[in-house]
């Protein structure tokens, strides 16, 4: 299931209600891998007080559906949930939730991460940061999610 939401996203509530209605999962799934991306209150050395998330209606849903279909061809997935915020997001508010259910953990871990990376690099969303200084700026590009904070940049 793919959802865009213009109001604050509660990932735990989304997961709880999705699983409650996903009766095809009953007894079948042994592994759930979940990623939640959350807005921080700083970026590139500046205090950030908000972020406007623009998207391309229609193409966003199409790209996300293709990402899930591609992952389903590669891994043994039982279910997938993607929820992404649009509109104005505040620090500590979740931006994105990706969850994958599978029988075994190898598939869930790999599929969740691959979906998240594909989303970051191809789903048509754009962030405009509202700084504490009242300046605003577009985020230039997403980084590679296989790098770590400790890696030399």
């Amino acid at each position, binding site marked *: 299931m793919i959802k865009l939401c213009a109001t604050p996203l509660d990932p735990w509530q989304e997961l709880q209600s999705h699983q409650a209605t996903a009766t095809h999962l009953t007894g079948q799934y042994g592994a759930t891998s979940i990623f939640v991306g959350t807005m921080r209150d700083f970026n590139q050395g500046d205090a950030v007080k908000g972020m406007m998330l623009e998207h391309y209606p229609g193409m966003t849903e199409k790209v996300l559906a293709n990402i899930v279909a591609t992952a389903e061809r590669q891994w043994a997935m039982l279910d997938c949930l993607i929820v*992404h915020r649009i509109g104005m997001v505040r620090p500590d508010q979740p931006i994105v939730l990706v969850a994958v259910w599978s029988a075994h953990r190898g598939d869930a871990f790999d599929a969740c991460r691959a979906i998240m990376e594909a989303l*970051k690099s191809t789903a*048509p969303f754009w962030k405009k940061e509202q700084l504490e200084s009242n300046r605003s700026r577009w985020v230039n590009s997403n980084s590679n999610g296989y790098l770590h904070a400790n890696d030399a940049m």
Partner: protein
Amino acid sequence: MSITVHYFASLKERLGRASDNVDFAPDLTVLDVWTLANPDLPLPTAILVAVNMDYVTLTTSVADADTVAFFPPVTGG
């Protein structure tokens, strides 16, 4: 008929508009569509292009009534 052109995010702000219409002609590529809609502005670098909501390259041909979109690198998630 014609080609609908959409712009998003920083590109939309830079152009000062969200969309254009361009008359269709045979053998029109995506890059031609940009040039017809923005005769005085070369296509900025690092711009992504979609036709009918699928990613394409600048040399992709467009058909009558297609929707073309130009936008900067995506930054969701």
